[in-house]
C-alpha cells in the first residue's frame, strides 16, 4: 500500500461533506465524479507497486464513475431544467452534522474490527464505511430523484473502496460484476427518471406519493 492512500481517502471524505452540504445539483454531480476519479487512483495506490490489473480496474472505475455516470446524470439534469435541491427532508446543516456523526461513528466502529496486517493504521476501512453512510444519508434525505441517485452512487463508491481491501483475494468475476452492475443499475434508474420527466415535468420523487398509507 503506497503512502498516497490516506491523503486520497481524506479527499474522498471531504467530497462526502461537500455533497451533504450543497443544494446545487451540478456541484453534487461534479463532486461524485471527482470521487469516482479518486477511487480509480486509489485502486492503483492500494496495490502499492504498479501492476497491470489494478491499473486497468482503476482506469475502468475512473471512466465509469468519473465520466459515464456523471454524464448521464447531467443529461437528466438538463432535461429536467432544475438546478437546486429545495426543501430536503433533513436540512443541509443537519445533514452535515449527521454526516460528521456518521463519519466519527465509522471510525470508532472500524476500531473495533480487527484488521489484516496490511490494512492496520490505514483509513481504508473507516473511510469506506463513512462513505457508505454518507451516501445513505444523501439518498434518504433528499427529494429530487437525481440527488437520490447521486446518494446511491456515493453509497456504491464506499462499497467499492471497501472492496479494495480484498483486491488481491477477490476473483475477477466479482470485480467486473461490480462495475457492470453499477452501470446497468444506474442506467435503468436513468431510464426511469426519463419516464418521470415525461409524465410529470418535474422529477421530485416526493410527488410520487399517491401510494402512501
Amino acid at each position, binding site marked *: 500500500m503506497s503512502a498516497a492512500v490516506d491523503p486520497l481517502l481524506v479527499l474522498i471524505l471531504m467530497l462526502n461533506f461537500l455533497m451533504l452540504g450543497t443544494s446545487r445539483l451540478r456541484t453534487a454531480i461534479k463532486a461524485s465524479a471527482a470521487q469516482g476519479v479518486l477511487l480509480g487512483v486509489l485502486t492503483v495506490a492500494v496495490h502499492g507497486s504498479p501492476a497491470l490489473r489494478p491499473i486497468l480496474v482503476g482506469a475502468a472505475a475512473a471512466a465509469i464513475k468519473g465520466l459515464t455516470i456523471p454524464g448521464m446524470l447531467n443529461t437528466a439534469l438538463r432535461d429536467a431544467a432544475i438546478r437546486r435541491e429545495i426543501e430536503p427532508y433533513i436540512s443541509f446543516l443537519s445533514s452535515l452534522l449527521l454526516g460528521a456523526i456518521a463519519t466519527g461513528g465509522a471510525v470508532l466502529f472500524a476500531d*473495533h*474490527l*480487527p*484488521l*489484516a496486517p496490511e490494512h492496520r493504521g490505514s483509513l481504508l476501512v473507516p473511510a469506506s464505511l463513512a462513505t*457508505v453512510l454518507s451516501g*445513505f444519508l444523501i*439518498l434518504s434525505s433528499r427529494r429530487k*430523484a437525481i440527488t*437520490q441517485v447521486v446518494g*446511491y452512487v456515493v*453509497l*456504491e463508491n*464506499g*462499497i467499492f473502496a*471497501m*472492496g479494495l*481491501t*480484498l483486491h488481491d*483475494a*477477490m*476473483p475477477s*468475476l*466479482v470485480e467486473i*460484476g*461490480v462495475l457492470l*452492475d453499477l452501470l*446497468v*443499475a444506474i442506467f*435503468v*434508474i436513468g431510464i*426511469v427518471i426519463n*419516464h*418521470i420527466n415525461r*409524465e*410529470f415535468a418535474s422529477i421530485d*420523487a416526493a410527488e*410520487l*406519493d*399517491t*401510494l402512501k*398509507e
Partner: protein
Amino acid sequence: MAIALFLAPLLLAFTALVLPARMDRSWLVPLGAAVHLALVVVALADPDPVALRGWLALDPLGRIVLPLISGLYFACSLYVPGYLSQRPEERHRIFCAALLAFLAMMTLIILSHHLGLMWVALEANTLVSAPLLYFNRNRRSLEATWKYLLIGGVGIALALLGTFFLAYSALHAGRHASLLIDDLVREAPLLSRPWLHTAFVVLFVGYGTKMGLAPMHTWKPDAYGEAPGLVGALLAGGLTSCAFLALLRFYQICAAAGQAVFARDLMVAIGLLSMAVAGVFMARQRDYKRLLAYSSVEHMGILVLGVGIGGLAMFGALLHLVVNALTKGVMFMAAGNIHRAYGSKSIDQVSGALRRVPVSGALLLAGFFAVTGSPPFGPFLSEFTILRGAIGEGRYGIAAAFLVLLFVVFVGMGGTVLAVVQGKPRDDLPETGYRDTLGMVGPPLLLLAAVTLLGVWLPPALDDALHAAAAYVEGAA
C-alpha cells in the same frame, strides 16, 4: 445439467425478444416453464450435480426451493396466455422476455454456491423484474417501480458490502479468501468473529430488504399492489423464497462458526416485528392487493422467526416456505382476476365477488383461510409445527406472541377479504368483459389443490428432503 437449468429459460427469453412483432409469443412462457420443470426432475434424480468447479451445485436446500419455484412458475405460466390475451399486445414482447429471464435468475440464485455469483444473480433478477412491475405503464406503477429499484438497489448494495465483510473475515484469519459456501462453512470456526457478526447483520439487512422484512418492507405494498397479479405471485412466492434461501446460507455459515445464538436473536426480533407491522397495516386496509403484500411481509416474518427458534421450528419454517409460496400463488392470481372483473382493487368499489366471479371469489376466500393457518390447509401444519418448536424449546413468550399476532392478522385480513367476496356487487359497475375461464382459474385451482394436499398428507419424499435441509443448515447439530 446445472448450467442447462438456467440457460434454457434465458435462451427462450432471447427468443421472446427477437420473434417478429406480430407473432404470438405468450406460449413461450409455459414452454420455458415445462422445460425447466422437466430439467429439475432430471437434476433431482442426480445424487450430486455440480458444475463450474463447484460454483453451481444442488444442495439439500436447493432440493426444496428449486422444485418449489419451478412448480409455482409452471402453474403461473399456464395463466400467462389467458392473461396476456386481455392486455395490450405491444407490451407482450418485453413482458414475456422478462418473465423467462426472471425464472433463469431465480434458478441461478438457488444453484449458486459462490456468494459473488449469487449476488450477481440477485442483482440481475431485480433488473429484469423492473419491466414486470412497470407493465401497466401509468403513474402509479411508475412510482412503484421507482421505489422498488431504489430501495431494492440499496438492499443489493448492502448485500454486496456484507459479502465483502464475509470475505474479509476469512482474509483476516489468514485464510485464502474464498467466497465458495462449502469453503466458508468448512473454515467457519476460524473466521474473525467481529467481522462475521458485522457481515451477518449487513447481509441480513441487504437480503432481508429483498425478502421484504420489516422495517425494510416499504417497497412491497406498492410493488405488489401495482404489479399484475401474476407478477405478484412470482415475487411473493418465488423471489422472496430465493432471498430467504440466501439468508439461510449465511445463517449456515454463522451456525458452523458457533455463532448461531447471535444470529437467532436477531431473526426472532425481526420476525416478530414483521408480523406486528403487517398486522397493523392490514387492519382496515381498503386495497386488497396491498393487503396481500402485507400478508407477504407477515409470512417472511414467520419464516425467519422459525429459523430463529431453531430445531423443530426450523423444519416448520422450511415447510412454511413451501406452503406459503404455493398459497401466495393462489391468492395473487385470484386477486388479479377480481381486479380484472371489477376494474378496481379497492373494497369501496368491489363487493360480492362470490356472485360476480364465483370461482375467483371462492379461490380468494379459500386462499385467505389457507394463508391465515386454518385447517385443513398446508400453512396450518407448518405454523403449528413452528409453534410446537417454540414450546419445545421452552420459549413460551415467543410462542404466545406468535399466537397473538396470528390472531391479529386473521382478524385484520378477514375484514377486507370478506368485504370483497360477500354481499352484492354494486349496480353501477362498468362492464369489464372479464369472465372466469379455465385459463384464468385453472392455475390457482391447481395450486390450491397442492396446498390442501400438503395440509392433510406430507409426502415421505418431501418430509425427508425437509429434514435433510434442516440438518444441512444447522450443521447436523
